[in-house]
């Protein structure tokens, strides 16, 4: 009973958020810069969470977020509202992140600078004291493990595990079936289980 009520409230929250996004999208289509700013502030953390998990570093993730919102700004007239804005945005962030990784790989391959090519995947430059105190070993282990699972499986797991999206939402973002989402998440976690065996027992 309590769980059902919570789910109902959560659904109402989502509907309210989507309605707010839809209103902002309409204002943005009309050229309102403040609407873009509010959309950015509402979704920047989620976009960053996805991008970080997919590109593996804070700075690169911020670049991806910026580019994704520029893409939103430029492509907003093509957004017909058939899916939630959040779904559309996450699709852009996901694709931009995966391409960013490919671009980085290409750049590393082209470069003769071995130091640059071996740059650590995660290199936050503005760490807080709390972050310093966090379990760095586990973070690095997870970062490294994520880098070793396939892009497709990683994207599905990131959207579900990091952003808390449902399988259905992940399927919408990635343009695949719910069954495929389930399979990819399963495979991604099995692979992580192998890679993190020493860390998580």
């Amino acid at each position: 009973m309590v769980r059902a009520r919570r789910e109902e409230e959560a659904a109402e929250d989502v509907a309210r958020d989507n309605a707010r996004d839809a209103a902002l999208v309409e204002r943005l289509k009309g050229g309102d810069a403040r609407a873009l700013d509010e959309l950015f502030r509402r979704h920047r953390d989620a976009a960053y969470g996805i991008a970080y998990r997919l590109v593996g570093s804070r700075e690169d993730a911020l670049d991806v977020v910026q580019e994704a919102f520029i893409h939103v700004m430029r492509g907003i007239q093509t957004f017909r509202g058939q899916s939630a804005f959040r779904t559309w945005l996450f699709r852009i962030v996901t694709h931009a992140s995966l391409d960013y990784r490919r671009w980085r790989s290409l750049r590393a391959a082209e470069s003769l600078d071995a130091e640059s090519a071996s740059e650590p995947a995660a290199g936050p430059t503005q760490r807080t004291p709390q972050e310093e105190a966090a379990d760095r070993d586990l973070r690095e282990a997870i970062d490294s493990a994520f880098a070793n699972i396939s892009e497709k499986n990683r994207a599905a797991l990131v959207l579900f595990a990091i952003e808390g999206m449902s399988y259905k939402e992940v399927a919408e973002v990635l343009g695949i079936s719910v069954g495929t989402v389930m399979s990819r998440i399963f495979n991604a976690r099995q692979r992580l289980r192998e890679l993190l065996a020493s860390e998580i027992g």
Partner: protein
Amino acid sequence: MKRERVSDDMDCEEIRTLLAGYADGEVSPIEKDAVASHLEQCGRCRQVVRDQQRVQHVLDAYQPPPVGEDAWNGIARRLKAEMTGKADPTVLKTRARVEGLDPTPTSQTPLASGEARTSGRIGRDATPTPRLRLTTTVTAAPTLAILVARPRKHRAAFGWVAHAVGAIAACLVVGLGLAAMWSDQAPPLEPGAMARQDDVVILEVQLVDENYSVALYSGDSDDVAAVWLVPNEAEG
């Protein structure tokens, strides 16, 4: 996927496709019952579910490194500049041709008008960089008037003259339009530039080294479809 047709006597191979969903509470009641029934008698699959939940638990507790408000505000300022600096809010079209690597089919329909905009990156590219020439062909929207010379019935003897005049006029208009499109050129794009054309969006151009840059290119507004390695043009 036939997700509702789940039998009670599924083997491990079949049940495996549902274990992630079971661990995440993302299966239907029928599937849930079938998996639970299987797990009662299969220790191996029970272990797989525990592994799935354990990895998920680790991921739940894990957060990416935090981002300071300064960094967010920097991006917000950049977005605002992009937004307010836009001269024409309507969707413009550009024919983008990268020197030596034309991203567009040569048979593509001539485009109407264009934009070429530069975009910076956060705390990067502070040093001067070689210019990448992305040749953009920009014209005013072509309004091709198709002239049809319709001979009058009572002057049928001169009908062929009217047809010839009409054909020449139409060729002239089309020729002038094409000449204008291919002659106008927008300024070269900086690394980080964005351009748009009919069904191609160059999302970003980034410098690789002094010789090459990379353009991220999207087939439509949603999907990034390709990456081009593009030779730079030395700044003249």
